[in-house]
């Protein structure tokens, strides 16, 4: 059961005929014309783990539609299933129940078709490869030509402002720079989707602000769909077009909040009343899900 406690929540129907037929049965709450096709279409996704302490409902009947070009943040306390949701979309974990389409395919096919780039909390660069070679790794695996690899390394390193670091090894870069390399690596093969699991969680506030701005520019210029897991309310509000508020035990969606600042927003919007209003609503959502209990 996806808890829909707010009238502005939109579980959008899809009016693109090329999209999968299962969409027809979607609960239409606030229909509105919808431009993009669905990149993620999750319906009643549940996932239970059997642990030594008994059953854990990591996800319970989560339904979510994400259109092309959106920037969707998942926010919630630990154990709310936001990372699990991302991993399910990435086919790193399989749901126990529910249907899931990623880029119009099953999650497994989407992974096999290299539809997404995944950025973990840690940069997870390969220490024995130079920055350039790290960027080339997915390209080598996917069989890009030598020339194409080189061009992409140049393009994506400049996209994350790291031109000139090609021959450095990861340990010679700061944590923030390493994470930028890992973002460039995730983008290098031009996937439709960018899945980011607390990518800036381990970085300090200043670096984080800076990377948030860069990420927005990247998103704006590449028009990727971004799914972004975070702990931080300001980060979520600043970056997103849509904020998914989640709650633990069982992991579920509490609220889905639209966040329609212009695509080329700047850090200054954080001082505006609209920003604070949305942040407040996220906070209320988190509270409603008893996230502040402990």
């Amino acid at each position, binding site marked *: 059961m996806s808890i829909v406690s707010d009238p502005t929540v939109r579980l959008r129907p899809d009016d693109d005929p090329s999209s999968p037929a299962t969409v027809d049965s979607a609960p239409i709450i606030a229909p509105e014309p919808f431009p993009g096709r669905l990149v993620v279409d999750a319906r009643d996704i549940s996932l239970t783990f059997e642990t030594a302490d008994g059953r854990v409902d990591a996800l319970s009947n989560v339904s979510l539609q994400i259109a092309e070009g959106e920037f969707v943040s998942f926010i919630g306390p630990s154990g709310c299933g936001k990372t699990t949701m991302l991993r399910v979309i990435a086919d790193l974990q399989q749901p126990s129940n529910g249907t899931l389409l990623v880029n119009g395919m099953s999650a497994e096919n989407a992974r096999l078709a290299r539809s997404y780039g995944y950025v973990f909390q840690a940069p997870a660069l390969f220490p024995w490869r130079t920055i350039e070679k790290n960027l080339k790794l997915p390209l*080598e*695996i996917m069989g890009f030509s030598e020339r194409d690899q080189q061009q992409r390394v140049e393009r994506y390193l400049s996209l994350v402002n790291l031109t000139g670091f090609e021959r450095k090894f990861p*340990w010679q870069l700061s944590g923030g720079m390493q994470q930028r390399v890992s973002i460039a690596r995730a983008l290098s093969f031009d996937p439709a989707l960018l899945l980011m699991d607390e990518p800036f969680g381990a970085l300090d506030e200043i670096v984080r602000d800076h990377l948030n701005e860069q990420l927005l520019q990247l998103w704006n210029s590449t028009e990727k769909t971004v799914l972004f897991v975070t702990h931080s309310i300001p980060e979520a509000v600043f970056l997103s077009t849509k904020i998914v508020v989640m709650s633990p035990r069982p992991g579920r969606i509490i609220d889905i909040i639209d966040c329609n600042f212009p695509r080329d927003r700047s850090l200054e919007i954080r001082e505006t009343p609209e920003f604070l209003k949305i942040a407040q609503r996220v906070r209320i959502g988190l509270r409603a899900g008893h996230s502040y209990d402990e």
Partner: protein
Amino acid sequence: MTSSSLALPLRAPAALARHLLVERYAPLATTVLALVMIWYIAAVAMNWRLVRDGFEREEVPYSITEVISGTMQAERPLLPAPHQIASAFLDSVFGYSPLAPRSLVYHSLVTLSATLLGFALGAAFGILLALMIVHSRVLERSLLPWIICSQMVPILALAPIFIVVLGALGLHGLLPKSIISAYLCFFPIAIGMVKGFTSPGPLQLELMQTWSATPRQVLWKLRWPAAVPYLFASLKVAVTISLIGAIVAELPTGAEAGIGARLLAGSYYGQTVQLWAALVASAVLSSGLIALVALVERSVARRMGAH
């Protein structure tokens, strides 16, 4: 340093260099010196009776200093003094043409060839086993106990069996020795490489999965490079073991050449000095082999971004 005592600006770096040299080599030199002293004392103590009995047998009057100097140059001492070993070693290394049967160089080369072949065979076999174990749970359960068991049987007991069986199959000379050497040295490599191949973290493995890499790509682009530090650690252990294996293999074969053969001959005829010289040769050989592996390791590590 001594002549330029007035050149003040030059003194500081010289003093510094001297300081660094002292810092680097003084502990080692002290240890070696102490060991040599203990050795000399032990040589006197252990050979005392031998020398004194010699004097008494011939009913020659003797003084304590005569006995002490006798213990330093006995022909078949219980424990040869360091300088005796050194001179015997140098003599048998440089005193003959390298291919003469009395040359330690010749015997070392014979053993070295068996060692290197055994090391190569053992490394290949160990890596292959590790690959199989890493890729199959069933193989891990079925192979690992046997691998461990293989090392529980003393090689001295196994070596003659190997020689006989391989001899019956028509294999003589280098190959049986190498196989015994490989039998000993594959073990640390197999164990080390299982650890190395499984060393990549879940993040790196999952990244490969998100790129839908094939198992072969995961092996070559992730598991193999991640295992390189483990490979060299186990190669260093294995290379000395394979030398020991080659020497042990020379004992039951009655080989007429090789460090093992020299050891055997030395112990048959009570030629303790020759025995020790052969031991020194094997120590030099194994240090050289380890140094060689370490050299390759350093150059590989540098190319792989070690810092």
